[in-house]
């Protein structure tokens, strides 16, 4: 403890890393990337199988691969990286020591053991139950056990994060309120605790059922509670990647939130309403009333959609205000044209934001509307939607942050900067195309989680139209493109750790220093925009978004009105 290298100050950014936190952030981020690599290889195999003219894997391997891809990406990659983000947003941003590092390592070990256990269960071949593992279809007990261990580890990580906030408060390393980014991370952590508790409530009995201790698990109860875990874990991602967007706006542009009040209230709306959305998955289920469905699927009056629409304005709005202050005031969009598009930290974040809103957000509301769900449920539109939210939104935001962390945290120069520069474009636009054509194919009725859309060898096959085959061919091509973009990320990150030149710009200290007290500045800093708006360019972009949203929403109602009468 009396090591004189207890804290490291990274000179270019001024960030102060507590030694234990630094190691834990590195370890969690690194293993996140390992699972991203595994998931990426699986993604390639899945894409090449659903590409009708390639149809690579046999059926059993396809279902196995898809199960592993879902868990490695949605759970293991993202949550490992999220724990790294939580430690960064608490210990590093608040310039304090990390609470109980040994317990944090225990959590890390449990997560790793759990992730490996579940992967082993899947690759042994007797647990191809998809990520959702709907009962009464059963997996090997170690499949559930691995998930439970992982969840307990992640829960420990959340409590270490909360403990670190207490440490910062006690040591008075900051004054007033938490920074916005930490506030967002706190939101993610609160949602995570709810999520993991729901996971425990359903997975522990399911584990007991799989070893024969419990006789039966009601499938509808399973769906209801499992989705409180399955959907909410995506809400952790939303809160986390929105925080990362704010962080990147601050890192690249020195942007400050337009209004702390608005952004923070939007995060509070997430805490209060986001979790209701697990109902999205139950809209075509028997046994749940329409009142229950409407109340929950709408996050009670769409308050969480409102919150996301607010973040969608305030993040680019903050960038616009910062850019206008620097003199990029010509017209509506000079601030955006003159943004550093060759810096992957920025380009990735902006591609993430636009894709999340236009593709992920709008399609999510379609699927989450009680009646519209009927023309979408379980078609490949659904993975189209969540690849836009989780891959374009979360994964790409985390990738962008990595390009900042490589020099600051890992103290390496980015290896192959030319590849890094193009990576967000290849990955981001590959994913844009992937999500769009999946939604197109889903609109034509192509089912998700399905090995053979030609139904070869069946007595009464369904013939999908040629356009559906075209869409699925494009799913394959764009999937491969996105995998190449993901491979570029792995190449740059792992390459930087191995071959990147060392960055020697740190000083060390035994004791940390608190955040210096900021002078009370003029908060919005006058109007640099036009029409009395601080960010007129962003506002017009938001209106474009709204028009797209409204049109697409009512087109779907129009389509619904043409199908069979159902009552």
């Amino acid at each position, binding site marked *: 403890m009396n090591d004189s290298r207890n804290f490291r100050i990274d000179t270019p950014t001024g960030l102060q890393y507590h030694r234990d936190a630094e190691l834990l952030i590195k370890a969690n981020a690194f293993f996140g990337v390992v699972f991203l690599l595994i998931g990426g290889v699986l993604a390639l195999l899945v894409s090449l199988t659903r590409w009708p003219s390639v149809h690579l894997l046999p*059926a059993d391997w396809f279902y196995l691969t898809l199960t592993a891809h879902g868990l490695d990406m949605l759970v293991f990659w993202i949550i490992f990286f999220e724990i790294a983000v939580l430690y960064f947003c608490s210990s590093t941003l608040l310039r304090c020591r990390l609470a109980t590092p040994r317990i944090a390592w225990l959590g890390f070990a449990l997560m790793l053991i759990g992730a490996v256990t579940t992967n082993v269960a899947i690759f042994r071949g007797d647990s191809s139950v998809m990520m959702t593992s709907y009962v009464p279809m059963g997996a090997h007990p170690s499949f559930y056990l691995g998930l439970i261990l992982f969840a307990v580890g992640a829960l420990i990580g959340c409590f270490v994060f909360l403990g670190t906030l207490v440490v910062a408060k006690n040591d008075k390393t900051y004054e007033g309120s938490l920074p916005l980014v930490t506030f967002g991370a706190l939101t993610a952590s609160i949602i995570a605790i709810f999520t993991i508790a729901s996971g425990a409530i359903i997975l522990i009995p399911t584990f007991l059922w799989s070893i024969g201790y419990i006789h039966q698990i009601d499938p509808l109860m399973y769906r209801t509670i499992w989705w409180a875990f399955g959907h909410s874990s995506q809400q952790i991602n939303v809160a986390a990647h929105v925080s990362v967007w704010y962080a990147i706006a601050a890192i690249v542009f020195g942007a400050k939130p337009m209004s702390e*009040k608005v952004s923070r209230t939007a995060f509070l709306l997430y805490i209060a309403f986001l979790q209701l959305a697990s109902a999205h998955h139950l809209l075509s289920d028997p046994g749940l009333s*329409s009142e229950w469905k409407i109340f929950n699927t709408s996050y009670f009056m769409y308050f969480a959609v409102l919150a996301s629409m607010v973040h969608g304005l*305030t993040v680019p709005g903050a960038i616009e205000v910062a850019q206008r202050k620097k003199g990029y005031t010509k017209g509506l969009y000079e601030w955006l044209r003159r943004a550093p598009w060759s810096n992957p930290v920025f380009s990735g974040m902006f591609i993430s934001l636009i894709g999340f809103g236009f593709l992920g957000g709008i399609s999510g509301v379609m699927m989450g509307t009680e009646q519209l769900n009927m023309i979408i449920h379980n078609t490949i539109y659904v993975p189209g939607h969540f690849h836009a939210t989780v891959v374009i939104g979360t994964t790409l935001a985390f990738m962008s942050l990595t390009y900042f962390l490589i020099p600051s945290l890992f103290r390496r120069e980015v290896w192959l900067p030319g590849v890094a520069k193009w990576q967000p474009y290849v990955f981001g636009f590959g994913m844009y195309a992937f999500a769009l054509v999946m939604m197109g194919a889903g609109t034509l*009725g192509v089912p998700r989680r399905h*090995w053979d859309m030609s139904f070869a060898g069946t007595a009464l096959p369904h013939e999908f139209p040629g356009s559906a085959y075209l869409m699925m061919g494009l799913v394959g091509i764009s999937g491969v493109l996105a995998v190449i973009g993901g491979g570029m990320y792995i190449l740059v990150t792992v390459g930087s750790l191995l071959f990147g030149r060392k960055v020697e710009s740190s000083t060390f200290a035994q004791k940390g220093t608190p955040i210096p007290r900021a002078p009370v500045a003029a908060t919005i800093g006058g109007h640099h925009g036009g029409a009395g708006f601080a960010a007129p360019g962003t506002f017009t972009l938001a209106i474009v978004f709204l028009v797209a949203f409204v049109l697409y929403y009512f087109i779907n109602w129009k389509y619904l009105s043409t199908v069979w009468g159902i009552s």
Partner: protein
Amino acid sequence: MSALLPPARRVWWKEPLDRVELAWILIAFAWSAILFFMMPYWHVFGKQNLSNEAYRISAEEFTKRTQTMVDKYTVRTETDEKIPVVHPPEGSDVYLIARLWQWWPLLELENGKSYRLHLSALDYQHGFSLQPSNINLQVVPGYEMVITVTPNQAGSYSIVCNEYCGIGHHKMVSRLYVK
């Protein structure tokens, strides 16, 4: 200050907001209200709504009721497996079994007439996906969902399973005829 630092005012609630934010919040709020309103509106004025009628039912009981219908209204059989094609009268209770990996029996309905369609699964969860209309419903074992359907176009439809149900999932496909 920047989003990485504590806000300038000790109490963040007292930070001011810009007009652009206020305008957008009001617009977004109004749109959220419309999104919410559309669902109850469609229940009153729309013609595509799920009923809330559902029962717990055992696999044996659901099979028995389906068999009774098949015995009464079968008009012919199709395929090598001799799957019965059932032509039930208008307004009657029509049963469709989802099981590994088959929809049973084949249904033949009449255009413009209404039927009470009962759906249940005997083993795993399945997904009822009517193509090319693209109407999709979850079929859960132990639960019987009842909806009134009114076909609006004659032709040969397919029923695809779109909930993963094991290694034969992609072979679970059937027909539905509308005369």
